[in-house]
């Protein structure tokens, strides 16, 4: 426990230092530390305190809950939101630690994984201290996985419904969660029967056995939470709530430069007749990979969701740094299952940072110096895609759940 406390304290102090530094940079330098989105959140919160719709603020495309949560930004201090996100970071680390302990990971190892991958990782530190709300969604996702593993389907469903309401991407976890719930202990008889046959027959069998009590309960409860929040906010803010909080994200086509390998292709073809077809072509690899990975690894829910998110982010049509937090929050849960040498892990991590650096350099010259570096940014984006894919392949290849390894030893 002392180790966990120390790690939490170190994580907290580092984040508070960054928040304070951010205040200084915002006041004294041309380039602000605080993310533009934080300004949007605060403006939306101000509108809420005035009894108006947060969607009066242009580019506010989030749940009204967030604007409500950040009303102390207006009533107390503008830094309140950042402190809330920092608290969310720490809470996420605590949930990840408890999930690891529940899976039987020794305390020291669990603490080390949480510290290395999350608490002392500069990326989630920077994301929260700059004022992005990703930590709150990370906390809800981790809580969902924790409660599913603990067998509390109701609590997991509530957390999941809330997570999907705040950010749409957790929707992709529905399939692995459903498969996991259908494969829980005591339901093996249903699975074992008719497990042979063609691929289609096995897929059909899998779909049929998915519909058990826990899956139906989870789906019903999560759906109810989502519908209740949607109806309530629709009643308050009308169509613009649906448009900005949900529909915008489903139809979003961002042609400005970002880490996505598709950005330049979408920018050049934005007004072309091929735009829709290319958008669809960009979506198909993502969909296929998510389906296959769900079926291949659902027995380890955290690993399945980690792969899901890494694939989703890597192949998405829009990708910014804060998206990395979506899968980094799950990394502590999967680290004990990945049997990889330190050299290989450090090499992959270096490649990941190098890939970002190679993208950020031409992006800086485009944004701040006005040079035409689109081709370089595009090539760096493709290289980053290759690096991320290599990392995902290596993680899959070195994944070894403890029980699987123990079974193999027994069989020998």
């Amino acid at each position: 426990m002392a180790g966990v406390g120390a790690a939490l304290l170190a994580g907290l102090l580092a984040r508070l230092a960054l928040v304070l530094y951010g205040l200084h940079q915002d006041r004294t330098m041309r380039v602000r530390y605080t993310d533009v989105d934080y300004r949007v959140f605060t403006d939306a919160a101000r509108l809420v305190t005035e009894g108006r719709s947060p969607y009066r603020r242009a580019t506010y495309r989030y749940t009204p809950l967030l604007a409500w949560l950040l009303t102390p930004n207006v009533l107390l201090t503008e830094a309140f939101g950042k402190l809330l996100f920092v608290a969310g970071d720490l809470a996420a680390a605590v949930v990840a630690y408890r999930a690891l302990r529940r899976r039987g990971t020794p305390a020291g190892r669990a603490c080390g994984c949480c510290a290395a991958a999350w608490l002392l990782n500069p990326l989630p530190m920077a994301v929260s201290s700059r004022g992005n709300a990703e930590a709150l969604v990370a906390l809800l996702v981790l809580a969902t996985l924790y409660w599913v593993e603990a067998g509390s389907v109701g609590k997991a469903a509530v957390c999941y419904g809330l997570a999907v309401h705040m950010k749409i991407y957790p929707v992709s976890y529905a399939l692995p969660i459903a498969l996991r719930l259908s494969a829980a202990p005591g339901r093996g008889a249903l699975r074992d029967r008719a497990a042979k046959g063609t691929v289609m027959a096995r897929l059909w069998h899998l779909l049929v056995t998915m519909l058990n009590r826990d899956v139906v309960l989870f789906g019903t409860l999560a759906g109810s939470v989502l519908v209740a929040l949607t109806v309530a906010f629709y009643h308050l803010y009308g169509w613009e709530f649906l448009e900005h909080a949900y529909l915008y994200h489903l139809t979003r086509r961002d042609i400005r430069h970002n880490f996505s390998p598709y950005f330049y292709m979408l920018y050049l073809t934005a007004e072309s007749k091929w735009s829709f077809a290319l958008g669809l072509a960009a979506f198909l690899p993502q969909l296929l990979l998510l389906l296959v990975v769900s079926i291949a690894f659902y027995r380890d829910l955290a690993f399945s969701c980690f792969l899901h998110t890494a694939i989703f982010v890597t192949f998405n049509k829009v990708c910014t740094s804060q998206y990395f937090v979506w899968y980094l929050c799950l990394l502590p849960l999967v680290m004990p299952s990945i049997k990889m040498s330190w050299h290989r892990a450090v090499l992959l991590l270096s490649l990941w940072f190098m890939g970002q650096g190679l993208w950020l350099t031409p992006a800086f010259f485009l944004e701040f110096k006005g040079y035409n570096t689109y081709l370089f940014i595009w090539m760096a984006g493709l290289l980053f895609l290759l690096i991320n894919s290599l990392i995902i392949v290596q993680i899959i290849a070195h994944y070894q759940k403890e029980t699987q390894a123990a079974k193999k030893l027994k069989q020998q």
Partner: protein
Amino acid sequence: MSENMSNMKAPEYLAQAAVLLLFLEPESRCSRCFRGTVPVHARYHRPADCLSCLAPGDAGMLSLGQLSAECWEPAEVNTPCSSDTTSSCQWHTTKHTPVKLMLRVPVGHREHSSLVCALTLLTTGLCSGLILAAACKYGHFSQ
């Protein structure tokens, strides 16, 4: 101009025009001079437009505010004095020498479209194939 008026993230060809009320400060070195600063945000323009020019409007308007009312014709426009919309000021047209500004904005090259599309789809296909192969090899599809 507040951030509420304009979607700063929209590309140029989808952006809506906005009226900018610029409140000038008296220039200390020149009694009849006023000074203002206009921030310029270069949006994404259509590919292959190699040069884009931004020119401010030819006419400006001046508020009566702190000047003598005797020399001025009746007000032409009643509009907010500042971003605080509770008070209204009277604005008049005034003549000045219009300034044309040239701004060079980097844009994508349309002739790269085929190459970019082909290579992007090829690379994403290759990468997804690699991950698919790994998932099929190491995944657990049966008990």
